[in-house]
């Protein structure tokens, strides 16, 4: 009567599923970790278009304002973080500071993405483009 499909086999499968998910997550994480390198520039995307590109090495304070949607992005000692934002969920403000290439802070309500990239990655991509042509 109770949980009709509960047998030892299915319970074991449950545990296996959990382990598989953990394993997959770990492999992807390792993959990203291996590719981790120091970034050189900060790219700010607004509605899938590049809004601004600034170097990561210089301390800076960028005030973003678009139709009353404000975000203040601070670059300090090679780290980037969102100081304030007037978005409803404040996830971007609570996000930890980012410093490596590929990391990003996303403010979904404002469609704003702050991304760190390294110079090498960009040139690599260009090379690939040239080869593709």
């Amino acid at each position, binding site marked *: *009567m*109770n*949980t*009709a*499909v*509960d047998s030892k086999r*299915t*319970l074991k*499968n*449950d545990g296996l*599923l*959990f382990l598989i*998910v*953990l394993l*997959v*997550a*770990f492999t*992807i*994480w390792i993959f*990203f970790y291996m590719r981790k390198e120091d970034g050189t520039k900060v790219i700010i*995307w607004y509605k*899938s278009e590049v809004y601004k590109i600034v170097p990561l090495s210089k301390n800076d304070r960028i005030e973003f304002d678009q139709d009353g949607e404000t975000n203040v992005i601070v670059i300090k000692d090679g780290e980037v973080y969102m100081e304030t934002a007037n978005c409803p969920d404040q*996830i*971007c403000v*609570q*996000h930890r500071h980012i410093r490596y290439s*590929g*990391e*990003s802070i*996303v403010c*979904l*309500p404002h*469609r704003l*993405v702050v*991304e760190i990239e390294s110079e090498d990655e960009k040139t690599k991509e260009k090379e690939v483009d040239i080869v593709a042509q």
Partner: protein
Amino acid sequence: MKMKKQKKKKWISWHSREKIAVGGLMTALAFIFSYVEILIPFPIPIPGVKLGLANLVIVTALYVIGVKEAVYLSIVRICLVALTFGNISMMMFSLSGCIMSLAVMIVLKKSEVFTISGVSLAGGVMHNVGQLFMAMLVLHNRSIMYYIPLLLVCGAVTGQIIGVISKVICRHLGYAKKAEKCNADMEK
């Protein structure tokens, strides 16, 4: 083997009027759970990670009432929650996650390879993956991909918690139904 299958189907049998009443009850419950979740912030400061209390109702409904009802229930719940507490973009994210997780949960439930907690775990993981895909579509930015490992683990943990709770709920609903039937038979 055939006997066994029939037994499984008769786990809890509802009349259609009962289905309507329980469906309405569960919709209200899912709605309230979504609200409660907004009120109580989840103690882990990872963006976008929630316990998904409302999914407790969806998973339970999937097993107790039926597949079709669970689908209706989650769509109604998402529309209600988005219109009262959120906005259209929130609805898009919820819908994509919900469709992904429901599809996987229905397939896994049919396959009978996993118990409720396993199905719920897969649902939780796919919910996060669906939302991430939606975010990638909206932002046209692949850097969000870096969240995938974290979201996979969080989805698995929250899904497992929800699954274990709903397993208990399902069992007790089964007992309640049985007792009710006994009482009805006694009155006859």
